[in-house]
């Protein structure tokens, strides 16, 4: 009896991610969901620019590499070209919450029927640890060497909270993957975000608080703890919008 195996939607290649980075976990969860829903053959994924730029090598479904921040616009094109296909983007915080803010906000406002996986690790990983739009106040990075000074660089962007103010989006949830329990919960959210698309419900985004031990200057274990101690208090976990559930409640 097989008790554990690689998801079929995940390619059998080594991932390039650093030790202790949680991208690998989230990749696996997305692939498990694709397997469980039986949608690999009709799914098209959009990779971002950032650490997960080479996600197109890791998923077995058709993949497109987008320009920095433009994944929701590219996904809009793919979905409009054939609405029967399943389209997801996989984006980091620099991609989704800085250079691609407009594309994110307007895809959500249109309730574009796509699934967005948003990795928030509060730093630019690929370029070597610069301040992200989601870096915490006081957080030391290569471009905020004395700590993020909110009087100069402003405050972090809270994407779930911001998008929840729009009529458009169907489903917004923030999760993390720093414990077994959290991983299980994250998978439920990701599955729901894909199921919503299959049900034609619209824009569904899961924000995943993730670790970057390399650029945070921590051990993998310290990094997981930092998510609990520092990130979650600033970015509370939970469902920020679930229109269908709200409708059911009202009914």
């Amino acid at each position, binding site marked *: 009896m097989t008790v554990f195996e690689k998801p079929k939607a995940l390619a059998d290649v080594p991932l390039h991610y650093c030790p202790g980075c949680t991208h690998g976990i989230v990749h696996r969860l997305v692939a498990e969901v694709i397997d469980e829903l039986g949608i690999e053959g009709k799914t098209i994924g959009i990779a971002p620019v950032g650490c997960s730029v080479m996600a197109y090598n890791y998923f077995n479904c058709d*993949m497109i590499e987008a320009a920095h921040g433009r994944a929701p616009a*590219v996904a809009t*094109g793919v979905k409009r*070209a054939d609405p029967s296909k399943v389209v997801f983007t996989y984006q980091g915080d620099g991609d989704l919450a800085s250079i691609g803010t*407009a594309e994110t906000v307007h895809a959500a406002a249109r309730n574009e029927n796509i699934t967005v996986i948003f990795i928030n690790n509060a730093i630019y990983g690929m370029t070597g640890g610069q301040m992200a739009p989601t870096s915490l106040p006081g957080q030391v990075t290569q471009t905020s060497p004395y700590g993020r000074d909110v009087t100069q660089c402003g405050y972090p962007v809270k994407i779930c909270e911001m998008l929840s103010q729009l009529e458009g989006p169907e489903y917004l949830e923030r999760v993390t993957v720093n414990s077994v329990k959290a991983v299980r919960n994250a998978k439920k959210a990701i599955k729901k975000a894909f199921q919503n698309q299959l049900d034609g419900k619209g824009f569904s985004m899961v924000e995943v608080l993730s670790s970057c031990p390399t650029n945070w200057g921590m051990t993998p274990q310290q990094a997981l703890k930092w998510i609990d101690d520092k990130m979650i208090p600033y970015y509370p976990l939970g469902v920020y919008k679930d229109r269908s559930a709200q409708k059911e409640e009202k009914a």
Partner: protein
Amino acid sequence: MSDKVLMKGNEAIAEAAIIAGCRHYFGYPITPQTEIAAYMAKRMPKIGGTFLQAESEIAAINMVYGVAAAGKRCMTSSSSPGISLKGEGISYMAGADLPALVVNVQRGGPGLGGIQPSQSDYFQATRGGGHGDYHMIVLAPASVQEMASLTVKGFELADKYRMTSMILADGTMGQMMEPVSLELDVKEPPEKPWATTGTGMARPHNVVNSLFLSPDELERTNFLRYERYAQVEANETMYEEYLMDDADVCIAAFGIAARVSKNAVNAARKEGIKAGLIRPITLWPFPKAAFAKAADRVKAFVSVELSMGQLIEDVMLAVNGKAPVTLCNRVGGMIPSPEQVLDAIRKAAENGGAR
């Protein structure tokens, strides 16, 4: 004439795109091309197509990137400042070898410039416009009929060579009305086995991508792309010659400048100056051979353009020093008059010893 309808140039582009099988249009309002978006907004929902007003030109070109990756004919349109914003997406489409049509109904620049006709995006269009080594197929209509026929041709060539085609028009071409026949020669798109349409669990995954971190691989993709460009240059160069058989003075002009120049050529002939015109229809590939051949006999060339001397550089490269090339231009939304062009022809004839 019963098969002709009176249309604005911008509307002719939109209807021709639909006739060519384009069912996905993305755009952002900007003068003087907004009629294209308005036309698409009216027509697309009636024929099962998509019209989407994007949040920006950047988003619009990336939506085009998505539809093109999914293997369908699609387009966006804009005017000069908006085309600058699309430059990023156009470069990515070149890097990923995606076919699509981009329309630039030019206005004066730089910066916000004005809203009157211009040809000052010639360099941007013919040299690519974005970063990296690449070309677009650049088509320059000089009538509303050509706005329609070159739109269809643009889709055909984009699919054939997996390139972006650009219609490089100007505010005059976009706004003026002329009779146009919509009996257009549409070729079916080729198979697109590379498209990301879902594997159907029947093939390895397709990847649409412009990232190649290994230098030798990136070099190879560039070399292969330029082999394709060489085929385009060999097979798809288009131009019109007017009274060139015995011409001593040759005008180079495209679009509205070519129409004005034709009047000037006729006037010059009445004065006994043997003037002629070469009108590039493809600005890239540029009709180098036509100019090189003319240079063996023509005594002087005049580049007539709505820019500060952009077309003239390609003319000089093709003429290669065999004859003088002078500039006759207006910019900022101004258009040269036939008298100004005639005067330039007279001067060229004197300096070139043509009479």
